[in-house]
């Protein structure tokens, strides 16, 4: 098969670029540990409380120390359960100090949901029977939107919460 000289140049340039992209993301994934969310832990969706992180009292923001926070969330159609405050009203906001490392752990009791904090790299599928988890630093001040970004039913667009980075 005959290839025009310029076609060879183009293929070297094109395939070379693809290899460069792959090297960059491969380096990030395997050397720097920046894998996409791929948590392997399973859970019984009808009894998520059996798992410590998803006990009612452990939901929402937990401060481990000044630099480390954990956020546990149970998703159901059409709500993110962040636990309750002292007087029993459901919490509706997540507050995290800027620069702290945050581990998000999310599961669902019913259908597939999305867990996305717009404007950040927190963007996970949440599937029944699995725990989704992602650790990151929130480096910008401001108000962010945590929303469900996988269709979960007729109230899907109402499933959201504010995230405040202070």
């Amino acid at each position, binding site marked *: 098969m005959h290839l025009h000289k310029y*076609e060879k140049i183009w*293929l070297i340039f094109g395939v070379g670029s693809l290899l460069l992209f792959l090297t960059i993301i491969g380096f990030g994934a395997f050397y720097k540990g920046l894998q996409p969310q791929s948590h*392997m832990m399973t859970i019984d969706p009808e009894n998520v409380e059996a798992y410590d992180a998803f006990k009612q009292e452990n939901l929402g923001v937990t401060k481990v120390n000044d630099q480390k926070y954990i956020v546990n969330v149970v998703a159901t159609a059409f709500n993110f359960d962040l636990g309750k405050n002292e007087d029993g009203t459901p919490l*509706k906001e997540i507050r995290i100090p800027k620069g702290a490392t945050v581990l998000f752990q999310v599961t669902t009791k019913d259908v597939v949901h999305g867990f996305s904090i717009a404007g950040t790299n927190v*963007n996970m599928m949440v599937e029944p029977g699995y725990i989704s988890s992602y650790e990151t630093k929130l480096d910008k001040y401001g108000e962010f*939107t945590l929303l469900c970004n996988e*269709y979960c039913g007729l109230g899907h667009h109402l499933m959201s919460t504010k995230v405040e980075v202070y």
Partner: protein
Amino acid sequence: MINEKLQLTKKDTRLSMAFIYVAFISLLIGGLMGLLQTFVRSGALTLPWGINYYQILTVHGVILGLVLTTYFIIGFQYALMKKTVGITIKERKIAWIGFWIMLVGTIMTAVTILLGKASVLYTFYAPLKAHPAFYIGLALVIIGSWVACFVNFHQLFRWKKDNKGEKSPLLAFMVVINMLLWLIATLGVAATVIIQFIPWSLGYAETINVLVSRTLFWYFGHPLVYFWLLPAYMAWYAIIPKVIGGKIFSDSLARLSFVLFLMFSIPVGFHHQLTEPGIDPTWKFIQVVLTFMVIIPSLLTAFSMFATFEITGRRKGFTGLFGWFKHLPWKDVRFFAPMIGMLAFIPAGTGGIINASHQLNAVVHNTIWVTGHFHLTVATTVILTFFGVSYWLVPVLTGRKLTKKINNLGLIQTVVWAVGMSFMSGSMHIAGLLGAPRRSAYSTYGGTEQASDWIGYQIGQAIGGSILFIGILLMIYIFINLAFFAPKGNEEFPLAEEEKDAEPTPKFLENWKLWIGLTVVLILFAYTIPFIDIIVHSPAGSPPFDWPIGNQ
């Protein structure tokens, strides 16, 4: 040499037109749904009569993504096969059986959605449960399309038997590759629909394995987009050169790129599941690498297209670096519409590379960027090429002529489409980078500032959507004209030829056993271990959930 056997008869044209009628009816219905969606999302409209946003979104996705495309492609491919390898009476009869099976399935699915019993969107992710008729209808569409696969395979097989040792006609080769791709890919979606969804929705199975169903769906979901794209590539490689008065740039390279598409478009489904739990990230990365392999034949195609244009232009005497480009037949809609489609594939393909880039996917996953992306690929590149084909194919099939007037209207239609899509897809891409989600009715998301920033882009989408709907109405008018009212005559069926002194095509490119064997090996390599892993480490299955979609 004109072969009597390869002339289109009334019976052939009726077969192709049956498919194409369904495609254009789908365009009108699906397009209207799209228009309504953009209005709802911008906050400008509330749907009457209790119709739900997600119901019309399901109609839009199913009818344009699955019905329009599949019907047009099969109708177009039957015409190509008849012109290159012929069709026997028996083959045609079987082809009709496939059409009717598909039609029954399509109507079943459509009615279920319209009754509000299947607002599950076209991806129908478990454990949302639609009415069983939705899944049974889908299964029938797939099974009916398999009939078309086997008819096309038999057509080429018969031709090869009658023409021993000869190279198969390029377009017949391409059709068979595309149908092989379709057959192998649909095995996955057929398996999940028939083995998992139907028994579960009927109540015979209590639970469904969600991750297995999603993995089988995306095993199908990515080759699906290549099943849409390859017929456009057929037109680019083997029809457009004739339209612009040139020759095929390279028969071998065209076949090579199709073979690469067959091999590398299937073992890549994980790049749609990059942010999912339960799948080993190393296997995700392996499929990302395989995804990058399927970019290579598109790089080859880009070169071949520009080269065809440049060689043709230079031969006509246009010199300079870009003289050939300026003097392309921009006023011939049979060229202009597909050409705009090709140009749209530059940003479309670029977006695809970004989507597939492993952890980078987190920036765009399930944002409206993705919607913007496939409205460039399938709803611009592919559909404008299909429109470009229709301008000559419909008159060929109905024994009419493409008039100057309709040609000019087609030019306007193409410009309208390009402008509308620039607004719509452009807004979608930007809003997506800001984090705005796809598949979402109008919402202020608790009044966050971010969400208020997205509204402007949603209005941009509504403006683009309205312009696109004008484009759809124009195209429907053009189609009706070409099908029923254009003057009778003989429109040319543009089949490009090779150069007289073209280098012979190497025989190995037609080694079907080799290509199918390699395809199977690659699929087994990419899927066996992670799939076993998914099954072995499965959580308890999910019962059906019908209340979230209002299907009690």
